[in-house]
């Protein structure tokens, strides 16, 4: 039933800002209406007020966590794309390395947080490494899969015209793989954010993850909800950002 056209209202409902507005409106109306206790879900105005009180802290932490996310994503994305290309070029490399990568993925990196902090220090570097680790795998797998989809006929044709391997890669294989690579990157950026957040739980003193941990210790539900709200917005913005980059570069889709 994918061919069912969306009604205009449904289309508006599904755009990100509208979704956010609906959720906030429901929150605003339903909490007093159903008499939900503040411990479960505090009223929206209270949550926003608690945010206004610490907004400089919040801004600082957001920048900090986003910087970790960005560098982890950048490094992880780059390594992911390069190893994806390697897997595609050499089946032997894929057979040797992919199982190790898969095994490494089942290792909950988060459990390693403390060790990563010992290795890379208690600053930004350790979070970047955790974010990188989480990002590179989906990117590598999606890159290799996308490149596999190149039409062999087309490659043979270009080769018969004397095109170099590099040129074939640039003009045929890479464009074919781009949308799949973007899928990997979209997954990756969300995982980078998670990596940065949770990485901060191992003794960092700033960042949104640290704020989250502190609000748990103080059982401050207002602040927990504030951070959930903020992180939802950030997650959505990162996703939209990548989607618009995708639309720009893959204009033929």
């Amino acid at each position: 039933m994918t061919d069912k056209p969306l009604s205009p209202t449904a289309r508006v409902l599904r755009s990100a800002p509208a979704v956010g507005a609906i959720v906030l409106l429901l929150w605003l109306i339903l909490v007093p209406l159903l008499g939900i206790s503040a411990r479960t879900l505090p009223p929206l105005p209270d949550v926003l007020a608690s945010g206004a009180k610490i907004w400089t802290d919040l801004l600082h932490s957001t920048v900090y966590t986003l910087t970790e996310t960005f560098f982890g994503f950048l490094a992880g994305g780059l390594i992911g794309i390069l190893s994806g290309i390697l897997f595609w070029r050499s089946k032997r490399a894929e057979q040797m390395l992919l199982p190790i990568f898969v095994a490494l993925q089942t290792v909950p990196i988060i459990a390693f947080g403390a060790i990563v902090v010992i290795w890379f220090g208690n600053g930004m570097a350790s979070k970047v490494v955790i974010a990188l680790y989480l990002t590179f795998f989906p990117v590598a797998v999606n890159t290799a899969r996308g490149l596999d989809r190149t039409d062999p006929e087309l490659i043979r044709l270009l080769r018969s015209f004397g095109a170099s391997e590099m040129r074939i890669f640039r003009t045929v294989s890479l464009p074919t793989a781009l949308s799949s690579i973007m899928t990997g990157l979209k997954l990756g950026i969300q995982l980078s954010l998670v990596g940065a957040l949770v990485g901060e739980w191992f003794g960092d003193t700033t960042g949104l993850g640290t704020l989250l941990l502190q609000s748990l210790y103080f059982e401050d539900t207002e602040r927990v909800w504030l951070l959930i709200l903020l992180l939802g917005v950030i997650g959505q913005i990162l996703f939209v950002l990548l989607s618009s980059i995708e639309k720009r570069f893959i204009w033929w889709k």
Partner: protein
Amino acid sequence: MTRFKKALMPAISVLLLFVVWQLAVLMFKLPTYILPGPVEIFGGIWDQSDKLGSNITVTLGNTLIGFVIGTAIGLGLAVVMVLSGWIYDFVMPVAVAISSVPTAAFVPLALIWFGMGDESKIAMAALAVSFAVLLNAVTGLQSSPRDQVNLLRSFGASRFKVLLKLQLPAAMPSIMTGMRVGLSRATITVIVTEMLGAYSGIGQVIYQATSVVDYVTVWAAVLVASAGSLVLYGLLAALDARLVWWR
């Protein structure tokens, strides 16, 4: 390449990894807090097999319970949403909004709401699984061509019957994908929740070993946790092969 050889390659590369690892530790005389060798770690697993065994059982048990609950919620919601247009328009945006929040952000909330016992871990696992299943199941259920649905309907099949006989089987591969993604997320989520507050579980073991600077135990627990999640994953893959035998 024969089947046997294909299965052998990963085994060889993992073995190679352990050998290189052990040699590196011996050659560079790495202290344990930087990196213990595999021999030392397996020794640690052997020494503490009782403790590690009982805690990984708690972790995997909670993961599995949460997984079943989450799958039921995700699948149930998906069916209701596909049957009713307005519920779809209503629930989908909310589901998308909630799923754009990193799961880790809900951990403090789960601990405040459900306490430090098993309930908070089960809730977090269920949360992680239900969204993965919901989003994949909806896509899968909607993938049956309109013509086929209309054909069955014109022969007098009820909406529910079409769902049961056509849409659900067609959606199985995509539902299984959701379950697989959900399961691996659930395991990690449970471990993370255990690290922040729990009475038992492998995450709690890791957290405690870290705070007393016992890194061999940390590595041993991490390895046991990975093996545990691999076992769960293997079970699900076997189930997948049985349920979606026609693929």
